[in-house]
C-alpha cells in the first residue's frame, strides 16, 4: 500500500473535512495538521464536532467531504492501515465488563495484532503505565469509574500505537484522577502523536502543546498555547484600581490614544478594565491621567489574557455571526 501523501513530519492531516448527518451539518470543512510527537488539544463546547472528527479519523464513520490521513494513509481508502497505527479511547470507554482487567487487555492486544510473544510484556507495560497493577486481576465491571477510565486508556495504548486519539479522557473523574491522567497523557508526547478532545480549558493548557478550537463544526483558532494566550486578538488588558469612583474617569481614559475600551468592573475598590491595542505605549499617559483626575491611583497592572478569555471571545463571536 502506498501512502497517498509523502511521508513527512505531519502525522495527521485533516483537509477540508465535512460531515453531515441527514440534514444536520456536524463539520463544515475543517483542516488542521498534527506533527509527529505532538500533543494536540481539540477544544470546543459540547456538540462542536470533536467526537465526529475523531470518529472519522478512526474509521468508524465516513466523512461526507474532504479527506484525512494518518501516518500518510487515507482514513477511508486505507482504513485498515490507519487502524493498525492508532489507539482510540472513545467518549465512553469500550470495556467488556465481565472480563478481568488483564484478560481484557490481553484480548485487545491480540485484536490489535500484537504477536503472542510480546503480548504479556505489552499488557504488563500498559498496566504499569496506567497505574492498574493493584486491580489487574479484578473484574472490570466492579471497578470505580476512575479505574475504568484508566482501563480505557490502557486499552488504547496496549499495542504501542504511533497515534493516540483520546475523546475526553478525563471526563467524570475526581480531581486527583484527573491530574494523574493528564500527566500520563502529557508523558505520551514525544514518542506518540496525540489528539485529545476536551471542553475543559485548563486541560489543554496543562497537557497540550497546540490547540485547535472548534465550535459548530468550524475551526475558530489554531495555534500553540503560548501564541494563543499571548497573541491578544483584543490586545492587552490593564486593570486599574483607584481609591474613589469619580464620574468622567472612564471617558478620560477612553480618550487616550491606543485605548480600545474601558469597563468598570463590579465590586470595591473601584477597578477599571482597560483594553488597549497590542504594543500599547501609553501606560505612562494612562497612569498620569488617573492621578490627575484625583481619584487616587492604588494599583495598575497588566492582566494577561487567559485561554478562557480567548476561547469565550472566539465562540461568542461565532455565535454572534450565526445568530
Amino acid at each position, binding site marked *: 500500500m502506498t501512502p497517498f501523501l509523502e511521508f513527512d513530519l505531519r502525522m495527521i492531516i485533516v483537509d477540508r473535512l465535512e460531515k453531515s448527518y441527514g440534514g444536520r451539518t456536524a463539520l463544515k470543512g475543517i483542516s488542521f495538521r498534527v506533527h509527529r510527537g505532538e500533543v494536540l488539544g481539540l477544544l470546543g463546547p459540547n456538540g462542536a464536532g470533536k467526537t465526529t472528527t475523531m470518529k472519522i479519523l478512526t474509521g468508524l*464513520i465516513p466523512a461526507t467531504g474532504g479527506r484525512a490521513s494518518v501516518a500518510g494513509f487515507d482514513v477511508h481508502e486505507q482504513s485498515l492501515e490507519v487502524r493498525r497505527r492508532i489507539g*482510540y479511547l472513545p467518549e465512553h470507554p*469500550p470495556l*467488556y465488563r*465481565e472480563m478481568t482487567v488483564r484478560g481484557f487487555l490481553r*484480548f485487545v492486544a491480540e485484536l490489535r*495484532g500484537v504477536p503472542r510473544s510480546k503480548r504479556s510484556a505489552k499488557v504488563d507495560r500498559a498496566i504499569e503505565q496506567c497505574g492498574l497493577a493493584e486491580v489487574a486481576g479484578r473484574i472490570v465491571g466492579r471497578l470505580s469509574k476512575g479505574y475504568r477510565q484508566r482501563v480505557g486508556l490502557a*486499552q488504547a495504548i496496549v499495542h504501542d500505537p504511533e497515534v493516540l486519539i483520546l475523546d475526553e479522557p478525563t471526563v467524570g473523574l475526581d480531581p486527583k484522577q484527573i491530574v494523574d491522567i493528564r500527566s500520563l497523557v502529557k508523558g505520551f508526547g514525544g514518542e506518540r502523536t496525540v489528539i485529545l478532545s476536551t471542553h475543559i480549558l485548563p486541560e489543554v493548557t496543562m497537557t497540550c502543546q497546540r490547540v485547535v478550537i472548534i465550535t459548530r463544526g468550524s475551526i475558530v483558532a489554531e495555534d500553540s498555547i503560548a501564541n494563543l494566550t499571548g497573541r491578544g486578538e483584543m490586545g492587552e488588558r490593564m486593570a486599574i484600581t483607584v481609591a474613589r469612583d469619580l464620574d468622567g474617569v472612564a471617558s478620560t481614559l477612553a480618550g487616550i490614544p491606543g485605548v480600545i475600551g474601558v469597563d468598570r468592573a463590579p465590586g470595591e475598590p473601584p477597578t477599571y478594565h482597560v483594553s488597549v491595542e497590542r504594543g500599547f505605549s501609553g501606560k505612562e499617559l494612562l497612569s498620569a491621567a488617573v492621578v490627575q483626575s484625583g481619584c487616587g491611583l492604588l494599583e495598575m497592572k497588566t492582566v494577561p489574557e487567559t485561554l478562557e478569555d480567548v476561547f469565550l471571545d472566539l465562540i461568542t463571536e461565532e455565535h454572534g455571526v450565526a445568530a
Partner: protein
Amino acid sequence: MRAILAVARREIYSFFVSPAAYVVATIFIVTVSVWFLVLIFQNISAQLTVQLTPGARQPTLTDKVLRPFLMNGLFRVLWLVAPLISMRLLSEDRKQGTADLLLSSPITTLQLVLGKYLGALAIMAILFVATMHIPLFLVLGGNVDRGVVFAGYLGVFLTAAMFLAAGVFASSLTENQIVAALLTMATMLGIFLFGKLAEASQRFLGGVFTPFSLGSHLEDFIRGILDSSGFVYFLSMSAFFVFLTQRTIDSQRWR
C-alpha cells in the same frame, strides 16, 4: 485467523462467565434429557403392545427412541436455545460501546462477524457435547444404528449452525437483545415455514423449491443419509446470513 479466534474466544469466555449461560445450558440439557426419558418410558409400554401381535415387524430402538429424540427433542429445543445464544453477539457490543473498540481495530468486518459466529458455534457445540450421554447410553445399552446417531447429530447441528447465523444477523440489526432474540425466532420460523410450503407445493410446482425444505434435509440426516444437497443447503444458508451481517455492519459504519 488470529483476529477471528480472538473474537470467538472472548465470546465463549463471556458466555460462560455469565449466569445466563447456565440457565441456557440447563434448559438445553434438562429438556433434552427429559424428552429422552419420555421416549424410553413410551417405548417400554410400546414393546408390551408389540409382543401381543406376533408376526408384525419389530420396531427397533433406533426407530422408537433415537429418531424421535433427534427430531422432537434435540431439534425442537433449538427454537429456544439458538436465539438465547446468539442474541447478545453484536447487539451487546453496540449497547456497551465495545463496538467502537472492535470497529476501530485493524480487523475486517468479515473477520469480526466470523469471530462472533464461530464463538456461537463453539458454545452450541459444547452444549451438544453435554448431551452425548444420551446417544452413548443408547449405543452401549441397546442396539441402535451408530450411523444414525452420527448423521442425526450432524444434521441437527447443521440446523443449529444455520439458526445461529440467522441469530448473528438479527443481533447486528438492533442493540436490544430481546428484539434480537425475537427477530431470530421470526427468521427461524420463516425458514421453517418456507420449507413446509416448499414441500407442500411440490405436487403442482414440480419441486422447484424443494431444495429449500428444511424438514426434508433434516429428515435425510436423521434417516442416516448424508446427502450433499443437505450440506449445500445448510452451509449456503449460513453463509448467506453471515454475508448479510457483514453488509449490515458495513452500512452502519459507512453511514
